[in-house]
């Protein structure tokens, strides 16, 4: 028996599909989410309405969405940059932590410098820490052909343990010596506070502007430079790349380092713009690195779209935090994000394939 539905590879991929399919997957995810809610005895309309109100509607909610979108845009870019080359960096989480460690080191040390310079140096600190941490994964992949998915994930756990060590189990530079009873990070000097601008009553963190800048830079790098072209060739046809003399090994390491630098930048923005200290528990709870994968998948790896999608997922996440309580169980937003990733992945099929209904034999004969 043949199945009546057949998948047929598209020879050409129409442009409009690139927009319609992600939107359709979003709608599909919301419908699936509604089913989950309904099965578990919640009113889906009520839940979605509250998410919309707390996540997006009004100036305060939208400020919150942008706040949450800032780290997510960076971790989304981190995942997108690696995906573009067929590398799966799920270590954005750990690279984000390391970026926060590097940036807070700079922020604590440079108490006296002017704010502008401090911000730039904190960004650099975050990028260096994040990129070195990711480059380890890249080197292992490039030199020993070690599966980067698992190593980058293991590095997340190691980074989390390192973070706990710095704040809870040692007398490190990052730990506040005045609070021995309740271990917490040392507060950054006031000059290391990143600016937040108010535009029509909406708070726009400078970190988000840096994310837009970073997204644009990645777009230019991948679309307009020789390096970006080489990455594309390597992704689509490693053999052709080797014949063309593209250096696979170093490109893998560079792309991983770049990916980690973006996550590290996110860690810097998180410390500078929002937390003002190395908050070991807080950034582990947030799980920005994992959510970034959802952002990148929904944006279909496009760096500019990634930043926009981050606002949407950011609002969703923020609403999840704000609403958490007996009527709004904590795992709900994560479940929705997972469903969005599901449908985004499944949606890829509609871009690559055409769905054909094959008529039954008997009907054809008649």
């Amino acid at each position, binding site marked *: 028996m043949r199945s009546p539905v057949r998948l047929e590879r598209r020879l050409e991929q129409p442009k409009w599909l690139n927009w319609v399919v992600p939107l359709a997957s979003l709608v599909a995810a919301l419908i699936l989410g509604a089913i989950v809610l309904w099965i578990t005895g919640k009113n889906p309309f009520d839940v979605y309405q509250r998410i919309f109100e707390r996540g997006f509607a009004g100036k305060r909610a939208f400020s919150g969405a942008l706040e949450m979108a800032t780290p997510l845009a960076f971790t989304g870019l981190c995942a997108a940059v690696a995906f573009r080359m067929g590398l799966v960096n799920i270590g954005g989480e750990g690279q984000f932590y390391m970026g926060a460690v590097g940036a807070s080191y700079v922020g604590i040390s440079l108490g006296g410098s002017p704010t502008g310079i401090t911000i730039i140096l904190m960004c650099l600190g975050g990028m260096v820490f994040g990129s070195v941490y990711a480059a380890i994964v890249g080197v292992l992949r490039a030199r020993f052909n070690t599966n980067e998915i698992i190593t980058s994930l293991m590095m997340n756990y190691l980074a989390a*343990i390192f973070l706990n060590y710095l704040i809870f189990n040692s007398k490190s530079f990052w730990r506040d010596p005045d609070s021995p009873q309740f271990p917490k990070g040392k507060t950054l000097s006031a000059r290391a506070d990143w600016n937040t601008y108010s535009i029509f009553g909406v708070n726009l963190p400078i970190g988000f502007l840096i994310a837009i800048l970073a997204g644009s830079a990645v777009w230019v790098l991948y679309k307009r430079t020789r390096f970006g072209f080489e990455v594309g060739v390597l992704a689509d046809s490693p053999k052709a790349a080797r014949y063309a003399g593209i250096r696979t090994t170093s490109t893998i390491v560079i792309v991983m380092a770049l990916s980690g630098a973006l996550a590290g930048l996110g860690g810097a923005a998180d410390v500078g713009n929002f937390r003002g200290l190395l908050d070991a528990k807080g950034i582990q709870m947030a799980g920005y690195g994992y959510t970034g994968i959802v952002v990148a998948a929904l944006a279909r790896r496009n760096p500019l779209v990634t930043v926009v999608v981050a606002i949407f997922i950011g609002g969703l996440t923020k609403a999840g935090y704000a609403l958490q309580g007996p009527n709004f169980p904590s795992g709900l937003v994560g479940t929705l994000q997972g469903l969005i*990733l599901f449908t985004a992945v499944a949606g890829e099929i509609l871009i690559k394939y055409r769905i054909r209904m094959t008529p039954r034999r008997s009907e054809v004969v008649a």
Partner: protein
Amino acid sequence: MNSNIFIIVIASAIFYGTPLFFAALGGIFTERSGVLNLGVEGTMLIGGVTGAWTCLHVGGSAWFTITVSILMGALAGGLVSTLLAFLCITLKTNQTVAGLSITIFAGTVGLSSYLANIWKVSRQPVPRPIRKLDVFGLSDTPIVGPILFHQTTLTYLSWVLAILATIYLFHTRIGLQLRAVGESPQTADAMGINVVKYRYVHTIFGGMLAGVGGVFYSLAIVPLWVDGMTKGAGWIAIALVIFGFWRPSLALLGAYLFGALQSLGSTLKARNVKISGDLLDALPFFMTIVVLVLVSSRFAHRKLGAPAALGVPYEREER
């Protein structure tokens, strides 16, 4: 004699290694059919929370409750991996991202936590935990007692499964066909093997084993449900599949090695050995990386390598 540190470490390595082995064995079945399941962590968590809920709500004798809990955990794991199978096999999506989406959907802050919340099982001690047995009253026997005769039922079941799985994979016709599907689906298809069916069945069965692994966490190791309680065990299990070169026997050894690493912390702490807890916590993750680097060398791959079609969706009309 039996309080000797080595004996304690070996005995608890087997205890802590048991869920790792269940998940890794599931991974072996799945990957042998050519499907890569990166959703193991999420699958284990769903199995774990379902098992805990069942144990809290199903009465009867201890044996009955525990058996039903394990079966429910397996069922839940099977359901989750059915989703993965649908994405990977029917929709032919990128298997890496499909697996990740399972782990994010079901994982620490996803459905497993949501279910725990609405079912109100968070941090509720389960009334009937899986206990270690005293087999033939031999648990006090020097050396072998704690290691061989003082383990849980699931551990003994896992030994049986390891043997059965080896026979199944390497000494039966179906096992041979399964490996053919994983190595070269085109050839298998030409031979008249139903590639889609083989992949579905083994992916779902693999997920069921991962679910059982999750139940071991919430019913035996802790034994209560805590969000994200597998703490990366699912990922270590995926590494164990590679480390065990897709063979149940080697995966069993690997699982016990990592079980030892995981239990080392609590064992040493109980002995008042002064050593950094963070360092011990980091050990399994660090060793996973080291081991992966070692086995991904070219020699190891050529000799005992991965199924050739692993991670590649099968499309009948393409070459």
